[in-house]
């Protein structure tokens, strides 16, 4: 094990473990936030693992997760809109903290990796991750209003 995989282990055990607990219990508003946070914590862990294993090609799963994770949250925001409207989630600080974690990880990896083609991919992943999570949490908090048949 090296420092990168230790950091990834910590993020997984603490962060993703907490989101598993959050998504399995409690009211719906807590569960959707936990689902969104699981993306924003698992994606930086994947990036850390790619660095820890010294395999740039492992960044691809992280890129796909940064793309489709928020899309999944949008699915829930859209199709559970009626229930979420009655009881909207309010946890902006958690979302900001998780996005900040993602941004820090991406920046550190960029500094370590140096400027090359892999850095472009990293930056795209980071932008998609942070933007996607903020937008998805906005969508959960009433960004999509329910219609009967929409």
């Amino acid at each position, binding site marked *: *094990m090296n420092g990168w*995989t230790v950091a*990834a*282990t910590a993020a*997984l*055990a603490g962060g*993703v*473990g907490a*989101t*598993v607990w959050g*998504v*399995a219990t409690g009211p*719906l508003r807590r*569960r*959707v936030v*936990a*689902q969104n946070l*699981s*993306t924003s914590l*698992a994606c930086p*862990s*994947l990036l850390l*693992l790619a660095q820890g*294993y010294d*395999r740039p*090609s*492992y960044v*691809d*799963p992280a890129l*796909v*997760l940064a793309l*489709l*994770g928020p*899309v*999944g949250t949008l*699915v*829930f925001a859209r*199709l*559970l809109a009626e*229930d979420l409207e009655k009881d909207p989630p309010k946890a902006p600080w958690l979302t900001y903290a998780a996005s900040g974690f993602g941004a820090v990880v991406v920046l550190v990896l960029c500094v370590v990796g140096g400027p090359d083609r892999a850095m472009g991919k990293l930056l795209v992943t980071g932008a998609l991750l942070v933007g996607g999570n903020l937008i998805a949490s906005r969508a959960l908090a009433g960004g999509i209003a329910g219609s009967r048949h929409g």
Partner: protein
Amino acid sequence: MDDPLIVVTLLLVAACATAAVAVRDPERQALVLAVLGTTLAVLFTVLQAPDVALSQLAVGSALTPLLLLLSVRKVRRRGRKKDKAR
């Protein structure tokens, strides 16, 4: 070499799978299944299978929840109609 990492991800997956079964409401189960897909993808990466992780992410993060929620919506709408007709 990476034993603690493998153990942590394995336990995460086991916990999430148990939760996915224990949560009985299909809408909430879809949420747990989405998280299960993510944890599985991390486990596959740790087991050095990035191809499988990609596959699991592509399917588990958006496609499966969408299919499940659309089915729930269809079934619910029929149920609601039936209640009205009574």
